[in-house]
């Protein structure tokens, strides 16, 4: 197997060179490398490195965005092959910014990082009602509900989501994760959510640990 080529995919993804990543993914497919290997050892490897650097403060939001864009474009090329081969994601999450809050950059970063861990993400957008999280989790069989809030005026909605999950009888089937400027671990415990993470890369690490436990 051409490990140099996979390394090239990873390195160029880290630099956000989407066009080149697509060319290299095509080259890897042409050389007969399995789509799953290209995904795991090329694209996800690169995104994992970016996530680690982001967590360590070595790269910043624009660098994460362009890397994630390169990953998505490469992954899009692999999608039909992965489906044909029956390769599954490691789990499914629904994610959104809670009702009353329209801020979405943090939520979008979490989405990118989750996808970088091989997790399927249903992005519910911003200003999402508690019922929508619950209904989506039930209908789409999500193992994770990820909640984002930027404002002190909206963080209380997170508690409503936890309560609605209990009322709907799915609380033991889903992990509820929270993040955003006004929340912390103490708030997470207070409202009965499962995890607070301080940044998008940590959110992806914790999400993966929940799904692979």
């Amino acid at each position, binding site marked *: 197997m051409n490990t140099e080529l996979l390394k090239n995919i990873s390195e160029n993804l880290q630099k956000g060179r989407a066009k080149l990543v697509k060319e290299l993914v095509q080259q890897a497919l042409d050389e007969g490398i399995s789509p799953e290997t290209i995904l795991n050892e090329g694209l996800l490897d690169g995104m994992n490195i970016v996530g680690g650097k982001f967590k360590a403060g070595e790269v910043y939001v*624009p660098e994460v965005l362009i890397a994630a864009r390169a990953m998505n474009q490469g992954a899009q090329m692999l999608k039909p092959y992965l489906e044909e081969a029956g390769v599954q994601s490691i789990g499914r999450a629904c994610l959104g910014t809670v009702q009353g809050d329209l801020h979405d950059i943090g939520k*979008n970063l979490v989405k990118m990082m989750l996808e970088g861990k091989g997790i399927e993400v249903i992005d519910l957008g911003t200003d999402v009602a508690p019922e929508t999280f619950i209904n989506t989790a039930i209908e789409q069989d999500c193992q994770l509900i990820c909640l984002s809030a930027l404002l002190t005026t909206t963080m209380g909605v997170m508690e409503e989501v936890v309560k609605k999950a209990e009322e709907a009888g799915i609380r033991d089937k889903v992990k509820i994760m929270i993040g955003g400027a006004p929340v912390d671990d103490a708030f997470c415990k207070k409202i009965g959510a499962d995890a607070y993470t301080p940044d998008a890369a940590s959110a992806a690490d914790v999400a993966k640990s929940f799904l692979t436990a």
Partner: protein
Amino acid sequence: MTNRERFQAVLNFEKPDDRLPAVEWASWWGDTIQAWVGQGFPAGLGFHEIAPYLGLDQHYQFWFPHRNADCPQPASFGGPIAEDEEGYEQLLPYLYPDKDIDGIIEFIRTLKGRHDAGEFPIWFSLDGGFWFPRTILGIENHLYSFYDQPELYHRILDDLAEFQMRTLEKLYSVLTPEFMTFGEDMSYNNGPMISEDSFDEFLLPYYNKIVPYIREHGTKVIVDSDGDISKMIPWLKRAGIQGVLPLERKAGVDVAALREAHPDFLFIGAFDKMTMRESDEAMRQEFERLLPVMKTGGFVPSVDHQTPPDCPLERYHKYVDMLKEYGRKAVLG
């Protein structure tokens, strides 16, 4: 000592005679006022009526508009109103509204007598080199633009700087505000949104065009950025910036550590708003945390963003009392 003199003293690292200024640097959330109205607060008060009603010092802020009232709005919150060079060209007739500035300058002129008499300090705000392109390109596209459209980014900042210099000339022909802020919001819970390299390539040249002129007039130059701005302070200092606000505790900002690292830098804010949701005792402990820094000068303590709606009105009154109590302790011992 007048209200204005008190403020000037702190900005110059001098001790006011009586206490530190007691101000809210930002207006209150609508939700907070609404909650307070249910607790006996009079409805319908404007900012300049709310502050004295609550026992706070008066100040005037002017945020100069950077686009006119007819400017297209984004289709959704944080969306773009121009996506590329061509879109920006089409938007130009709506941007940099000199006529609107003239109207504001005339209003400021009407305040000059009261400002001269020391009734209140005046500060003004400009859209900064991070903030303004974001309002044009949209939150996410703006972050991509550092890599995708660097020429456009530079062009926007060149135009912005020219407009702001025209605005400043008009302003300084009338009076000299005590301080100003560049609205930026370029940091978040985990620090800066952009790298130092990006800051140097894009924002530093922009600041270098504006900041020296403002400082020449004696107005203190402060950057307004939510989140954890700590790591950016050395970058900002290289750009001639003299202070930051609001120093969000929840984002991990440690104002005491910042004071130690930057003894000559101005701070406004730093009071952890989350304590206002808890108890009177939590607020007192928060003031105790801030007191040593309050004593060093160059620091106007204030809520580190806006008072949350679940802070009862009665507790807010106690907050104002404590703000003045600790403001006296900082000065008088």
